[in-house]
């Protein structure tokens, strides 16, 4: 029992450390990547003893700034809810990561350890529950700030989440039908098969439409451009307009953590999770014959690395999207959500079901 607890604690520490360090780094990545895309140099001024190392000290400077700034509560705000809102946002975003498997079952010290913090049979539902709860942070911030702009931001957040949550759930149902499991580790295992021994049976191959719909809806969940209506910098500043100091920092981190979370879900459900093409438990089986034998440790290491690599690639892709597309107008967003994405995701389920029945 105690041993179990120790293992789980170690796993969750690894996961939280991974997510938080990537989230911290993302403030730097966002600046630098956007700069490189736009023919600029990006933040490079923060220096310690004259060392700048590509502006990597900027996240540290940010944290110092956030902590030192005055933590202001506007008059007329509901103090308790006002303080609760960022905590709700950030907590549920981090909690959702628990169900993501970042590696296969590791055989070590005479026991089998599934590299996943929470082994839930309903992992996917758990993640959706956490993501939906995170929206309460936005809504609470909007209500409790005693500011009309924040209120508008909260309203927009609520309606946007409503429109996209449904598509989010329905889009992934196709994948659930194909793998016939809600357990994320099981899903990744199911993606280890190969079509004609050549093409890995990843979710993107069997569910391309579902993957696209899910990605769009999930990006809407992260509240970043092009779906940043609750924030809407240029018009209403958004639900966190009254926040300052570390409370604002928490909202800021939430967006990044959700980006990581969405990248992880995309990886896990549609891009084979920790699977490496042609890599099986005993080594690489080339499709043209021939086997490269590998020990268990090397295989697991490679698979964890592949998971990290895929997540990082997705984050990069989401950043490219964020710095390329302009914001949707409110009516366009609603139209896209209800009139296009929702019916298409329903059709996706029907077609998936038909095909599954026909194949047998």
């Amino acid at each position, binding site marked *: 029992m105690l041993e179990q607890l120790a293992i789980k604690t170690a796993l969750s520490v690894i996961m939280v450390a991974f997510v938080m360090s990537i989230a911290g780094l993302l403030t730097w990545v966002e600046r630098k*990547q956007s*700069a490189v*895309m*736009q*023919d600029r140099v990006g933040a490079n001024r923060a220096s310690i003893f004259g060392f700048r190392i590509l502006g990597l000290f900027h996240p540290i400077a940010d944290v110092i700034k956030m902590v030192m700034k005055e933590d202001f509560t506007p008059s007329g705000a509901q103090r308790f809810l006002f303080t609760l809102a960022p905590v709700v946002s950030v907590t549920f975003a981090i909690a959702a990561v628990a169900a993501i498997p970042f590696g296969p079952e590791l055989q070590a010290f005479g026991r089998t350890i599934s590299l996943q913090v929470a082994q839930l049979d309903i992992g996917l539902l758990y993640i959706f529950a956490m993501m939906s709860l995170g929206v309460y942070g936005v809504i609470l911030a909007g209500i409790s700030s005693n500011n009309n702009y924040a209120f508008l931001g909260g309203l927009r957040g609520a309606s946007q989440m409503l429109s996209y949550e449904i598509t989010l759930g329905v889009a992934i149902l196709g994948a659930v039908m194909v793998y016939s499991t809600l357990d994320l580790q099981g899903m990744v295992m199911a993606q280890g098969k190969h079509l004609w021994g050549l093409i890995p049976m990843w979710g993107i191959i069997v569910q391309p439409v579902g993957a696209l719909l899910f990605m769009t809806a999930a990006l809407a969940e992260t509240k970043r451009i092009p779906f940043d209506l609750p924030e809407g910098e240029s018009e209403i500043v958004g639900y966190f307009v009254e926040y300052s100091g570390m409370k604002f920092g928490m909202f800021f981190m939430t967006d990044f953590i959700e980006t990581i979370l969405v990248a992880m879900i995309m990886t896990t459900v549609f891009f084979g999770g920790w699977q490496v093409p042609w890599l099986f438990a005993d080594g690489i089986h080339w499709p043209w014959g021939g086997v490269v034998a590998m020990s268990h440790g090397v295989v697991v290491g490679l698979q964890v690395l592949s998971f990290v690599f895929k997540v990082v690639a997705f984050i990069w892709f989401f950043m490219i999207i964020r710095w*390329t*597309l302009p914001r949707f107008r409110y009516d366009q967003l609603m139209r896209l959500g209800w009139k296009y994405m929702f019916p298409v995701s329903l059709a996706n389920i029907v077609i998936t079901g038909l095909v599954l029945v026909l194949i047998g």
Partner: protein
Amino acid sequence: MPAKTVTVQRPELNFWEKIYLPEIFRGLWITASKFWRNIFVHTAHRLGLMKSVEAAVTIQYPEEMRPTSPRLRTRHRLTQREDGSPRCVSCMMCETVCPAHCIYIVAGEHPDPNVEKAPKSFVLDLGKCVYCGFCVEACPEDAIRMDTQIHTIAAYSREEMILDMQELLNPSPGGMPQKTFYGKKS
């Protein structure tokens, strides 16, 4: 005459443009290829290669300055005679023409009997100056010019924006004379 109406044809979107996706991917392709190209060139720069190819169009300001045109109206200076005294003869032309009334000259006797007058004090308030260049045009002696190429004109107080004759004759290289720091006399 009735106003002429111009009918602007709105571009018709075809099917592929209407469903957004191909267009979105085209946009992403442009930005992503820009990203990889620039990353490649930045890395090459770090290794000391491909210096002639630019990866960023920005100028790293305090270290790098944008070259300014010689006709740009920058901070004023007073030109000098061979002996270092100002060429100005206190004719008050510039003070009169200045639309901002920011030049204050006190005329005095010049030791050389061939020169009628010389400024005892010549004060220019940059806080009021509108950089019109009229003073330069009005001067009959080519005594005031705006060619120092200094445009980092900033100070912590209004007093510091006022330049005296000494400063006008020998402009400080840093842009503005550092008289005070954060409003305190140093």
